[in-house]
């Protein structure tokens, strides 16, 4: 009996140190192998490209939303802001005749502007983040439709002169061989986000604010400024997401984007970001996003329609959070060091 409990203790300690960090990546690898074994044609280069292609835009906004969640807030507007900025950029190019590169910068600027507004509403005007970003979610959806006059915006095709920007996210050679270069862009943005979160004052302040806002304030931290910056980052990633969406899908419809924010939040949560703030990693978020993408690509290969993806994503979110709660509970039980009674 004693031996058994000792063994359990060792297992528990192991799980406390490492399991959380390796659980999500391990789940991703296992899922990939699972679909590879049981799905049709899953282990193929095309599927891989497909997985990468379908995860850019959610990936970008998930990184941004990770900043906001770590700061102790939530951003429901990232999805619609992304689509709003994309459609405004498309309208600028097509209807107003702006040059391509300025239109792309406009997409980024619109995203940042919305982030700025969210940040002001939350940090200065003290609106609860849920309400503030629920409002901007609807506003951005409306703004996109108004600017585009309820018409879809079509970006140039790859063949046309202004189609160069598509190669940023996907390189297609003359022989039709394609490289998902967008993955590198996503990793690049993720790396910058990682550096900001861990190596700069801003990142550390965002963690401190999310962990204990009042303590941060009483340490002389400019809480308003840095809390706002988290939302600005989310806005910026929504802008980058908008560019990637335009590049991959070419046509942007008005009033799209609702629901994307929930996938972004789900990605962050699966990756171990805590909704109560102060805990989270960019790496975890990327893993979360790819778990969802693999589900999306893998389920059809097992003759399950794509909408099963939402079902299973929901299951994954719940399991991930349950595991997290269970783990922290166990950790606190160990800390109190109550004598075991078995």
């Amino acid at each position, binding site marked *: 009996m004693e031996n058994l409990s000792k063994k359990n203790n060792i297992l528990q300690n192991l799980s406390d140190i490492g399991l959380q960090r390796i659980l999500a990546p391990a789940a991703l690898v296992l899922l990939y192998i699972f679909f590879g074994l049981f799905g049709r044609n899953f282990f193929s280069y095309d599927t891989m490209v497909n997985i990468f292609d379908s995860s850019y835009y959610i990936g970008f906004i998930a990184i941004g939303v990770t900043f906001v969640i770590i700061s102790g807030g939530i951003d429901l507007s990232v999805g619609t802001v992304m689509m709003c900025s994309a459609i405004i950029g498309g309208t600028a190019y097509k209807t107003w005749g702006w040059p391509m590169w300025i239109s792309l910068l406009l997409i980024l600027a619109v995203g940042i502007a919305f982030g700025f507004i969210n940040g002001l509403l939350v940090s200065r005007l003290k609106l609860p983040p849920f309400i503030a970003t629920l409002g901007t979610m609807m506003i951005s959806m409306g703004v996109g439709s108004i600017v585009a006059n309820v018409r879809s915006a079509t970006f140039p095709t790859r063949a046309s002169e202004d189609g160069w920007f598509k190669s940023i996210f996907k390189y297609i050679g003359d022989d039709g061989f394609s490289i998902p270069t967008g993955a590198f862009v996503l990793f690049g943005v993720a790396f910058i986000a990682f*550096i900001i979160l861990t*190596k*700069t*004052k801003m990142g*550390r*302040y965002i*963690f*401190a604010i999310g*962990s*204990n806002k*009042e*303590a*941060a*304030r*009483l*340490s*002389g*931290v*400019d809480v308003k400024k840095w809390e706002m910056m988290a939302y600005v980052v989310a806005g910026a990633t929504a802008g980058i997401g908008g560019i990637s969406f335009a590049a991959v899908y070419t046509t942007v419809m008005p009033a799209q984007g609702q629901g994307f924010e929930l996938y972004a939040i789900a990605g962050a949560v699966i990756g171990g970001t805590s909704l109560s703030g*102060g*805990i989270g990693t960019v790496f975890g978020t990327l893993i979360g996003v790819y778990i969802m993408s693999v589900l999306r690509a893998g389920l059809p290969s097992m003759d399950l329609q794509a909408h099963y993806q939402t079902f299973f994503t929901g299951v994954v979110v719940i399991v991930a959070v349950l595991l997290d709660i269970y783990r922290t509970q166990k950790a606190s039980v160990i*800390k109190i060091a109550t004598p075991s009674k078995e």
Partner: protein
Amino acid sequence: MSETNNLVLSMKNIDKRFTGVHALKGVNFDLYEGEIHALVGENGAGKSTMMKALTGIFPKDSGDIIYLGKPYKPGNPKEVLEEGIGIIHQELNMMDQLTVAQNIFIGRESTKLGGLILDKEAQYKRTLELFGRLNMDIDPLEMLGNLTVGKQQMVEIAKAVSHDLKILILDEPTAALTETEINELFTIMRDLAAKGVGMIYISHRMDEINQITDRVTVLRDGEYVGTKTTLDVSKEEIISMMVGRVIYEEPKSKSNVPEGAELVLQVDKLNAGRMVRDISFDLRKGEILGFAGLMGAGRTETARALFGADKIESGQIRINGELVHITSPMDAVSHGIGYLSEDRKRYGLATGLSVSDNAILASYDMYENGLFIHAKQVEKVTSGFVERLRIKTPSLNQLLKNLSGGNQQKVVIAKWLIKNSDILIFDEPTRGIDVGAKSEIYTLMNELVKDGKSIIMISSELQEILRMSDRIVVMSEGRITGKLSIEDASQESIMKYATMQKYKN
């Protein structure tokens, strides 16, 4: 009627231990029908613990409770109330958005049609009748939140009394009341006493104890000191019973601050809310200025105003002779003030972050190049302070929530030392910390002032005040009621000022 017939409650040899703390050491207390019995003692003397043992918040370890002539084992608070023991806490526990009548009869609503529908009419009548019995004049249909604090408290008393009470416990009921309201409260208390309700009255205000109570029981450090008839005992006697004669630690005999030490902080007529009225004092370089007083005297509020955490209404603050404007903690920190909160988990620490993250939190500006943090330098400086303050942690990356209270406190101190703050406000620096860590923090404070830092130390422990301070400021009810040099200070003189009501509201 013989006396034993009249005895409602008798508590004998009540003992209670928490982990590491012997909170009640064989305490006695009894209460007669219609008696108002004061229970007094310093903060932490065991008054609340005693009342919690009586009302079933937690069980006693040993001792006897005799209630209405029978051995009594309190169940949960709701059962206790139904059995006739009610308690009015300092903070009101009612719902602002409901009417007076709804608040009083919540959970016991009048109904009709076999319990399906609320009978507002009947409830209104019940409330009016209750108020009539208590000579209270309050509209049962008024929203509770629209009443003054004093009236709300009366509603709470009415609610308790509606349970047909034998014992009513009042825990500092006058703390938030104006003088008129206090008088009204006393009238109601005398009325209840005439009806035979025994009352346990917890208060720090000596004048009120003289005015309203029949007997006084004094507790000190969880021990029973004695019970006196109020008429036979003077204020000074009660105070000396409260503070006791035993000195556990040698108090400081004289100030360590040299004559003519420069003034680092001058506060002139600071006002900030109800609890900070006309506060003026000076702090000299190398001085530990003790802020003594009872809980709720306004010391923490003063510190928070000074630190920019709460809004300052008026008054001037000079640092090193220069007039400064402090509107936020950022300002205060940039002027070299550091604040160690009394509630470190809420206001001092991000317990979900690491030791190093917490220690460096106020000082990132000093350890970055505008773009990146100098991780190596941060590690060097934090590990240096971890060593100097003897913070026991397995590593700099350990999460703060896994450290003991004393070590957490040291991390907060490290935070301000890394920031190189010159004026340190220590608000209850040793609260919830074990004895060993306590004396380490004392040693550290003495080292700091030797290095030329200045410390404002807020403490509710008189021995701590006397042991550490060079000078003492005593506050009561939001005002400074006394200033003492360490040479003149004694537990009695401090308590005298601390229980003084200098101005009525």
